[in-house]
């Protein structure tokens, strides 16, 4: 059996090098060895991406490097892993969950939300990023359209927080509570506020947002 820890380390480093094709070639070569595609995905690819996310959490890399790594990981998934899994009839899911993300109405800030989007992507989520200043009804429509598991709402300002409440109220009012969870975050958001508006979870930063989304889907965190 391959040394998966060594492979994890190699991949997480390759996701951060200048050459955008380096990880792709390495994955193809590695999968010619004695590790199957499902084990590669679960034991190498996913933990390697999580390790890159952790580096951003510790500010050892910055947002642009995280964006590059997410793009490279996406290419490995689409160009190497998915074709191999289709060929092997594997029922392995490559996506850990679907999330609709938005900065709510009245809030034009996007960097915090973008950080969460990227951290979710490098941790294996499919994310539908609706951007900023998004009305509650539009968010609900998107969640229904893509059959989201989770809706993530961001607000940097107290004056946009009422739109988070509206979003939860609309979800419940339209009978969609069983369809998807709502997680909220942003500088002024607290656990108390989350409970007060009836949201399902709260992440105080991008790292915690990933942990909470995994918990909402009852998936274990990546070791």
């Amino acid at each position, binding site marked *: 059996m391959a040394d998966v820890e060594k492979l994890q380390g190699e991949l997480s480093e390759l996701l951060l090098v200048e050459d955008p094709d380096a990880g792709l070639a390495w994955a193809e070569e590695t999968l010619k060895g004695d590790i199957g595609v499902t084990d590669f995905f679960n034991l190498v690819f996913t933990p390697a991406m999580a390790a890159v996310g952790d580096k951003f959490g*510790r500010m050892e890399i910055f947002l642009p490097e995280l*964006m590059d790594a997410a793009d490279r990981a996406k290419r490995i998934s689409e160009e190497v892993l998915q074709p191999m899994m289709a060929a092997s009839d594997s029922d392995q899911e490559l996506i850990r969950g679907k999330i609709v993300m938005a900065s709510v109405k009245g809030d034009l800030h996007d960097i915090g939300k973008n950080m969460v989007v990227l951290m979710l992507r490098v941790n294996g989520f499919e994310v539908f990023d609706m951007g900023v200043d998004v009305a509650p009804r539009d968010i609900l429509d998107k969640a229904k359209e893509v059959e989201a598991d989770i809706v993530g709402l961001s607000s940097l300002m107290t004056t946009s927080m009422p*739109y988070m409440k509206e979003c939860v109220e609309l979800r419940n009012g339209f009978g969609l509570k069983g369809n998807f969870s709502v997680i909220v975050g942003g500088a002024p958001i607290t656990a108390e506020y989350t409970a007060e508006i009836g949201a399902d979870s709260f992440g105080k930063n991008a*790292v915690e947002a990933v942990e909470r989304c995994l918990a909402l889907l009852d998936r274990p965190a990546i070791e």
Partner: protein
Amino acid sequence: MKNSPIYDYMLSVLDKAEHGPVVDENDWDFNYINRTIKDLVKKYDIQWDAEVMVPADDDLADRLFEAGMELAREVGVYCLDTKRQMKWSQEELDYILSTAPKEEVLGLGEDKVTVRHRLPDEDSPITTIGGPYGTPVAEELFVPIMVSYAQESILDYIDNATLVSTHGRPIKAGSPWEAVGCWQEAQLSFEVLERVGRQGMPIGCAEDSPSAIGELATTTYGGFRLTDWHHASFISELKVAYAELTKSIHYQHTGAFSHNFYNTIYGGYVGGAEGLAVAIVAGVILMKATLNGTTFNPGPSHAHLSCNTFPAMIPSLSLGFQAISRNTKLMTSSFPRPVGGPCTKTLLYESAAMAVATVPAGISILEGIQSAAGRITNHVTGLEAKFLAQVGRASVGLTRSEANELVQHIIPLYADQQNLGEAIQGVPFEEAYDVETIQPLPEWQGMYEETCREMEALLGLTL
């Protein structure tokens, strides 16, 4: 009737928002901002020893100014509403910088305050402002909290908190509740000035106007005055919304005093400390070019901690202020946003580090504080602003080299407490102050006095 040159200039700014090249926003963040800044850091050799907290290298400061100017000229500003790039020629930038005043008087009567341009290492006085700067506070605590700042004579003027609610209702951005909230903010602010007998004191406002509605509704008869300190801002990175352009045009017409701010993000699209410094300089130049204010604050914020007292960010900010101060007449403000909240020594140490690092860098204004990173409702008091102003005034006359040594003594007192995403929240106002007498409770007062003595011994300054 013929327009004045400056009014024609402002119309040309609006034209840029309507007619500039259409740019995808992701492309803006990644290529226009990140790639350009990376190139400029290399081209102008923007680097310093990581141990240095207050660089004292004039050549580096001037190279940083050139890098920031090139970013301003080559990249410009992104208009969020039209999705267009707003670009300026060097001649346009030179024109608008040349119109900047070196000095401005705010306020009324005996409470007038003069703000002046300062150079690095200069021993001329700074202006000090105290307030929660948009930190949310409960309606019933707005007046006592703001009085806790306004009553401190060392503070030249105040900047408001944001109301959590207005008349018991949430203030929704872009709704009529913004106008209601800003009118309540104005009325409560005048009550604060009345209570401390400083009726002419300028007010930093409006802090309940995320769109233009609140500001436009209340900068009028019976509301906020032209002599107050009105705000218009950028969004990171180098983006502007119609709402802020609307406010700026309103200020241009009314003659209201305008303060512009921008929070560039450490660890975000600008990258690390060197890129942050370039963005700080470009941000100040472009705020002048776009919003045409009179005073400027460039943040910044840490991507995870939301603070700006993280050690690696301090030299970027100090150097950015030096670059602006040495090469323009613009008046800048330093604004600590610490991780620590009231009734913690961390808050005081972080504030001291920022004051010592930035006053000798040539700032005009020392303002604050968004305690606990401005995140937690009611976690603000006037005492930390008083402390900041004391350290700031004591730092006037220090050279940058002297300041560097002092900041290096302060950093170890708080650096290991800045953990990811965690505010050291301290206590809310009502547990730090007697709400009736509006005086600090013994625990907070004692901690403040002890830290003053500690700083005097450690830094050799008289507070």
